[in-house]
């Protein structure tokens, strides 16, 4: 006879399966939606051209007249480089002398407030007038943009690759030895490994004085992962993973470490040491709770309401990312706003509310709204439903 526990278990299995199916469905829909219409961008990149001939090396030659006898107005190449949430795709138009006529964004899926930091500097329009053989070095002939380094790097690199391809492929310029992106493994990566190892060890009660060490790790994470490097985990990273926008592993060491630290323990053991012992925004909420002196939980009926809200919002955001192939099409995280002071007005309001409520209730963001928590809850559901 089926016990209440069996009924619950099979209900859970059904729910887990249903969600899985919906996600797969979203992925498939996104696959078919993915189209490219580049004609308009070619014209924007090279306004003087009337029509374009496309070469196999995906460099387009712009011609001045519609008839067969016309002059070359220039060349356009469309190139993509992985940014923070996904590839940044740029169309660059060169005139026959190798000067950049225009550079336009074809597609990007960065968080809107962050991308605005780059576009506010006039980029990529500011590349106009540069020569195709310019170094395009951030900090050199390209100004740095505080808070949007990854996006800017991707954008600049895409322009550089486009220029270099056209220079060697059409202008007959010598091949410039491209400096390979060095593997990024420096202080951030080392500190991250240290924090992850210590945090996990404390979580597993493998270290003495675990309370103090836990606080030390959380505070260090708040300062470094949060304020100094602005690189905590958010749903955007998980969405990028699901959509297939994986960063180049050379500058993705940090991300590999972080996402592994988040997801592996949940998948293997169902536990979330990242959330409780490492997450910098969680650390901020813990500090506020300490200042407030009480650590109440949300009363029962509210807890249920927020659980449903939290999970529905997360599901919507993930589905949006899959369907539109855009990891940031629906973002509502506030930790980025907290650490960089960049965001939409409503994000500031939400952040203020979360911080103030944290004084009275334990980890309100984590328990009520955090989409990453919803994702880990779902992974735990899958484990319970299908693991032996």
């Amino acid at each position, binding site marked *: 006879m089926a016990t209440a526990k069996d009924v619950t278990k099979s209900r859970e299995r059904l729910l887990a399966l249903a969600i899985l199916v919906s996600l797969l469905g979203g992925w498939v829909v996104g696959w078919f939606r993915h189209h490219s219409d580049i004609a308009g961008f070619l014209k924007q990149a090279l306004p003087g051209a009337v029509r374009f001939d496309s070469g196999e090396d995906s460099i387009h030659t712009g011609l001045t007249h519609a008839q067969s006898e016309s002059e070359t107005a220039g060349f356009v190449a469309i190139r993509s480089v992985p940014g923070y949430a996904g590839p940044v795709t740029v169309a660059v138009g060169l005139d026959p002398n190798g000067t950049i006529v225009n550079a336009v964004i074809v597609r990007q899926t960065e968080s809107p407030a962050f991308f605005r930091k780059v*576009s*506010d*500097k*006039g980029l990529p*329009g*500011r590349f106009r007038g540069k020569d195709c053989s310019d170094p395009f070095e951030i900090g050199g002939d390209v*100004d740095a943009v505080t808070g949007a380094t990854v996006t800017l790097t991707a954008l600049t690199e895409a322009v550089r690759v486009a220029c270099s391809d056209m220079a060697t492929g059409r202008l007959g310029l010598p091949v410039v030895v491209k400096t390979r992106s060095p593997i990024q493994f420096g202080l951030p990566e080392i500190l991250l490994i240290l924090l992850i190892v210590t945090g996990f060890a404390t979580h597993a009660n493998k270290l003495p004085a675990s309370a103090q060490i836990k606080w030390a790790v959380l505070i260090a994470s708040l300062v470094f992962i949060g304020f100094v490097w602005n690189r905590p985990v958010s749903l955007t990273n998980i969405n990028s993973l699901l959509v297939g926008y994986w960063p180049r592993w050379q500058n993705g060491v940090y991300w590999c470490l972080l996402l592994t630290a988040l997801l592996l323990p949940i998948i293997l053991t169902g536990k979330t040491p990242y959330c409780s012992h490492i997450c910098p925004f969680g650390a901020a909420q813990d500090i506020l709770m300490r200042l407030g002196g009480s650590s109440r939980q949300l009363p029962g009926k509210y807890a249920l309401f927020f659980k449903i809200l939290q999970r529905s919002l997360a599901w919507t955001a993930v589905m949006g990312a899959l369907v539109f192939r855009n990891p940031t099409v629906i973002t509502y995280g506030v930790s980025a706003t907290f650490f960089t*002071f960049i965001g939409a007005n409503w994000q500031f309001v939400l952040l203020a509310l979360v911080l103030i409520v944290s004084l009275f209730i334990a980890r309100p963001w984590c328990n009520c709204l955090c989409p990453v928590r919803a994702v880990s809850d779902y992974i735990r559901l899958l484990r319970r439903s299908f693991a032996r």
Partner: protein
Amino acid sequence: MDTGKDRPDRKVRVDRRTLLKAAGATSAVLGLSGLGLSGYQAGRDPDSYTGCEGLQGSAQDFDRKRFAVDRPHYEKVGPTRRADGRTEVIFSRVGVARSAAQKGTKIEDLDEPFKSYYEQHPEDFEFDKQNSELRRKVAEDSPENKNRYILAEAWADAMGAVSPRPIGNDPPETSDFPRQGSHSPFKMKDPAATAKLIKKVSYEFGTVLVGITKLNPDWVYKYPSSRRGFARDEPIEVPKHWEYAIVVGTPMSWDPMYANPTYGTSNDAYSKSRIVAFRLASFIKRLGYAARPHTPGNSYDLMVPPIMVDAGLGEQGRHSIVITPELGCNFRPAVVTTNLPMATDKPIAFGVQEFCKTCKICAEQCPSGAISKGDKEVVRGYRRYRLHSSKCFNFWNSKHGSMGCRVCIAACPYTRKSNWVHKTALQVTANDPTGVSHKLLTGMQKRFYPGPEPSDFYAATLGGKNASYREPPWWLKTEDFIEL
């Protein structure tokens, strides 16, 4: 037997009640005397000079004595050179480039001194040639877009409608001095008293800030920029009677200034500053001394910003404009050169050089990218930030509204109205030797007071959005009064 040691001394027992009574009495006395002093201030209040509040000099209220330094902030690096007013002033050379663009003339076929200048700065030739073409494109914008600025342009032109007669083309030995037959110079009692007098009458003539310094001949153009009594291609010998320089000037109207580049104008400050300078020159000539006004638009024989720095009015910022503590960059100066003996002012240092190092807001907002984002360079022998005047002037021709851009002035954090918020910020940065507050306040300025994307400032026909730094004041919103 009682000795003095055993008996308690007669002390006044200070208990709470007594303390309270004493404190209360003192408060009453202080309060009442305060009323007397406050009354005295009310009697002297500049704001009680109805209709002439602005002529009392009360706007120049920064404590310059506290921040006075012995040497101005600009650094002399090696041999110095006076500026060539024919080529290094954009307005003077741009006509040559314009006709070269029309006729297709190349650099090597230009006349001197333009040939040498453009050979050294070939990219300026390309920029300067584009001005007419840019203006043409701007004129192609839709009537609705253009008509939006009817009121702003009417106001700007009106502000420029009243102007003193130019000083003419007589040599300075004639035009600077009082009319022949008038008396010889009066003997002034004391240079310090004379300086005080000159400043007071300057306020009465309408200046908002005034400073006095000895004229450094390096600031005089080597060759003239406009016809004011010097032969065009002969080097200027700095006349001996150009001994002192008095800097006067006025700000542009604040709300239209924040709505630059399209709704603002330089004309309001220009015309007022010109009037002050001419009045002052006339006054000094009546005392029997030589006096020559050097005024905006382009009626200068010298560079004004370094003279402002010498006179202690402010420090030169990254955008080459001198930042004053009271008005920020919103100050359009004029200079009167004279041989009237006066005590001079010392330069001041109030944290601008530190601030400009990390701020760069003007450079980030500049629509043309003319403002340097890097370090200071050596220009004519002095270390200062370089400004790319050809790029700047190109943008002047890429927008609607009164001539000029002025976005850097509007965006500069020092250019704020004088309320307690900005006065406090100024005092903090002026008194902070560490530079911490400069970085903090710069960060706050960028987050709390954002501006449009620089490319949006361009006219719609040039890829922009006709954007202005801030919304215009209600009285310049043409669409509210006129059918567009």
